């Protein structure tokens, strides 16, 4: 209980989902890349293994559903903060069904589940950046104002600010949290612009860590007992320059995670899991 926003980065559970074979051909993507499903599965398994074994999270592993080629990207289906889980209404119609399994899983975890039923609302979890103090919601092709409003309703304790996202799929396609009060941001112009907006909108001061590659700015921060600051980030193979930046972080347990295949369908590191903290919940 303690403080409302204490324990940023503290998680006990993770929800992930298997990769369907349909991912290769049917998953939505912004580029024309060919995806090797086996490689993708290999990467994903490694990713899940890190969460489960290395970090000791309780991993809820949902089965793949071939009718939802993008279902591995569970992040978009729900936003969890504290005890409350908001089931989203994904912007891509083909993905709307993904939320069903997610809803069941979240309810099974005894979270306070809120559903986004408004048919005018769309929201992808990938557009939601929770900093520990407030939300930023990217208004993108997948997320609209109404969706953001519903999110604000669901999480009344926090300020919810909107950030236009024009050049990329999601807000978190070029940024993420790298620690308490630390925003990792890509160096592209749109990314920097978005950061400026976020800074202006916030009452808080955030530090920023700029990485050369926008996509590399998507990393996963955790603050786990006995492990301290943990950061899952890109590999040197994938983004060598950005990797160097991460390497300079001190007092972090740095865990490079390969994401060469999923990135072809716009999947970033955060996309593949929903992190939940049940321990601190009231």
């Amino acid at each position, binding site marked *: *209980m303690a*403080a*409302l*926003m204490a324990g940023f980065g503290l998680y006990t559970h993770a929800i992930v989902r298997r990769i369907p074979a349909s991912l290769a051909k049917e998953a939505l993507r912004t580029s024309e890349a060919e995806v090797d499903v086996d490689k993708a599965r290999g990467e994903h398994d490694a990713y899940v293994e890190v969460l489960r074994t290395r970090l000791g999270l309780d991993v809820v592993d949902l089965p793949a559903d071939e009718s939802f080629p993008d279902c591995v990207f569970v992040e978009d289906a729900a936003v969890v903060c*504290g*005890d*409350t889980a908001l089931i989203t209404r994904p912007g891509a119609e083909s993905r709307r069904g993904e939320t069903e399994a997610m809803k069941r899983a979240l309810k099974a975890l005894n979270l*306070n589940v809120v559903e986004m039923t408004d048919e005018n609302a769309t929201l992808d979890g990938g557009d939601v950046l929770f900093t520990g*103090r*407030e939300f930023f*919601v990217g208004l993108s092709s997948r997320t609209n*104002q109404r969706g*953001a*409003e519903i999110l*604000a*309703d669901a*999480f*009344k*304790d*926090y*300020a*919810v*600010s*909107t950030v236009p996202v024009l050049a990329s799929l999601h807000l978190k396609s070029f940024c993420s949290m790298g620690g308490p009060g630390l925003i990792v941001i890509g160096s592209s112009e749109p990314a920097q612009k978005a950061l400026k907006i976020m800074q*202006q*909108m*916030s*009452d808080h001061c955030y530090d920023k860590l700029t990485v050369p590659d926008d996509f590399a700015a998507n990393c996963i921060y955790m603050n786990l007992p006995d492990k301290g600051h943990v950061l899952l980030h890109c590999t040197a193979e994938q983004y060598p320059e950005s990797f160097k930046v991460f390497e300079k972080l001190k007092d972090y347990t740095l865990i490079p995670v390969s994401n060469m295949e999923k990135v072809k369908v716009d999947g970033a590191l955060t996309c593949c899991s929903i992190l939940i903290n049940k321990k601190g*919940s*009231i």
Partner: protein
Amino acid sequence: MTTEVGSETEVKEKAEESADQPDQSEKATEETQEVASAEGEEKGKEKEGKGISKFLPTWLKKQKSLSQTSPTKEAALKEEAISVEKQEEEGPAPEVNGLADEVPEKEAVKSEQLKEKEEKPHSKASTDTEPAKEEKVDESVEKSPEETKETTEGQGVEEEKKEQEGEVQGEGEGGGGGEEGQTSIFQSPLRLVRKTKMKLVVCHVTLLDGTDFSCEVEKRAKGQFLFFKVCDHLNLLEKDYFGLTYKDNHEQTSCLDPMKEIKRQIRSNNWQFAFNVKFYPPDPSLLSEDITRYLLCLQLREDVASGRLPCSFVTHALLGSYTLQAEFGDYEPDQPRPVDFMSQLNFAPSQNKEMEEKILELHKSHRGMTPAQADAQFLENAKKLSMYGVDLHHAKDSEGVDIMLGVCANGLLVYKDRLRINRFAWPKILKISYKRNNFYIKIRPGETEQFESTVGFKLQNHRSAKRLWKVCVENHSFFRLNTPEPPTKPRFLTLGSKFRYSGRTQAQTRTASSLIDRPAPRFERTSSKRISRSLDGAPMISITEAGRDSAENGREHRLDDSKSPLRVHVDNIYVRHSNLMLEDHDKTQDEVLKHQASISQLKRSFMEAPPPSPPQTNQWEKRLTSSPATAVRVQQQQVVSEPHAEAAAAAAAAADFTISDTKESAKTAEVEIEETVVIQEVSKATKPALITVTTDSPASAPTDQETREPEVTVQEEVAVPKDAKAAKQESVSSESESEEEAEYHPNVSVSLSHTQIPEEKEEEDKENEDETAEQNMLAPDVSSHQAETSHPAEDISGGVVESQKEDMKKNAENEKEGRETEDSTDDLMMTPEETPNGVALSEEAVAAHVEEEPEPRINGEPRPQVICYSEPPVVKTEMVTISDTFAAQKTEIATKEVPIVHTETKTITYEAAQLDGTGDGEPGVLMTAQTITSESLCTTTTTHITKTLKGGLSETRIEKRIVITGDCDIDHDKALAQAIKEAKEQHPDMSVTRVVVHKETELAEEEED
């Protein structure tokens, strides 16, 4: 006395009449007369009163009896306070600002006084009680006389009208005092006495715990008086976070302006008020007393329960559980509280069984927590809520879309539905204004932007626009300024609201509360006395009462004070941003008149310029005037001699006219007027400064030793008001100024800082070696401005010299003040330096500089250079200048007057080659100066903002100068590096253009005393 037939109509008339004409000087005189007469009359009245008492309703009688006890104390206090107030009263208009500024010192004094008073109450009780009786008589009897009085009132005489409700009391006396006494809680006796005709009115104040507090006040009492009575009743010392509200004729909740008469505000016979939190402290843990936190909790419980402060289910439950713990203590497993009991308590707008169970469950976990701890936890959680302390106002954007504007400690938030769609931090806002139902903010250009932009919002009506504007002014003043805006001088035929925040700022409040020295007051945590009184000492939950009027705008005008080191720090960072203009556009003639009436009281008003006005010349200078340092000075001066202030004001008024002429249209005139006001103040402040300069100039060295002499001079100067000069200066400055902005300069420096710094400085004085590292940096803002101007020319640190002088003055002041008050502010204290120097840019100052000190002219611009300045003739000087471009600039200045300071001075200057450009510009104005004192090092940060007009283009240069002085040997490399690092952190966009290391060694003994 005579009996009045108090009719409402009369009252109204009076109210209207009075609205236009508060001539305070007249009042003052009258008051004194009244006092004299009153005393004679009192006895007679008393007799009458007894007779009359028969007719008084029983409840009134009760009140009397109650009041008698309290009044005594007040009376005693009053007497003591009188001396102070008299001084103030001398000035035609008691300066709110001045008072506020004085606060730190006075506060201490007050607190002492209070204590004394409290101790003495008995002795004076007899006296006090008498007056009360008199007044009582008055109420019943006086009605007829009032009518006569009314006529007089029309003339600006203060007369008391009674309403039928009115009641007589000793307190009524106090009420009179309340009008003027800003600083002191207790009003001066003079008021009390006012013609025997004081009419008393019973005010009903709904407190945060839902209970009613009734008291009698003189009908003409100011809001402040009532407010203080309430605070007294609550035993609340940290009162600046709170305020009173009332329902206006439109059923809108409005804040009761402490500096205005209650009667004129409520405009009805409904003397119903609510006591509310006005400014939500961003960090409640910094409050000094538990009772303050408790009251804040009560407000927040209400805010949460009513839905004004939205929060999640979990947070509702958590907050509720802390409430239970605070009010009822530990959860008792043996006697679980009945659920129906829980449901009596209102925790949330949508409260249900589930929540109540959750609350109980959480309550169990708080075992062992004291009420104070529970309150603290409550606040720790509540303060993190995103809407904590956000005052929402309905509005429409330029496209007619419904939005909400939220005013908070950090700035202005824009919401659409629940989403934050924009945010304007105070530092980003240059000007705030309203016109009719439009509300405008002028935004500082971003790094990449070239021009300032103005954002307009439509409010429901004119009143709501004005209300929003006021809230903004107050919040900005409270949270961002160290001292309230300097008082605005009355002007002739001025349009626009003179409104300024008149209370203490958070910084001041914090200082004041740090001085609180009393055992933690006991208070009953029984908000919901309705629920069960049986619990007695046991805490009760106030939450239950939803019925209170908690004014939504509750935070509007109020005083606060508080300052935490952190806060200070922030301020520092924003110093350069702090030019905020507040405008208030639309006023009807009537309003204007009323305002004028109140002007004397509210001297901080700002004028408004038409918001969307085209960019104009700079009013930087004016702004400068408003710089904290100046403000401080002004205040001091005011204290010392109010008459001066008046004269100055008059001069200022004259000046204003001039200015307006220069400027464009009528609108401009308004704006200018306000600006002018600022200027005036500056000029006052400047005067001394200027003088000082002359004298000091010899002792150019920043060394403290030298400083001492200047101090003396300063004081003397202070005493002598030079109105003429002021006027001149003003006019001068006005020329350079642009019409657009009447600026409201947030004063960064805290008056409080004076106190702190002084001591250390003294020590420093004795130091043999002073090392000064000076950094001239261009603030980012500057760059942006420049961009606008497109003038490449950069002004080199103008006013550096001045700043030094200022410093010296500061020291002097500090010493003075320091002796009086010792402050233990945190290491980081900001000393208001004397802006005057900056202001000095005015003719005289400039002239002085030129004459005495050959100022190096940079690019044709006469700007005093710090480096050179510092060397007294007798001083051995070794100058090492490393500069590519500006070697020429660093000339040593031979001072005419040779201070007898024997020092060895070594100055090393590093300059960047950035400076170039020619400027016919004016000397820079010192915007703000702060001194941060730590153990052995003293860091003085001075910010100069210079605006120059070149061919119609204005160029603004903001220069920040950081002086590090230390008693002992300083590792200047380290200190310098640190200073630069910090500066860069604060202003990433600034560049360091010059670094000067100045080393002074004392060769001989100082001649100073």
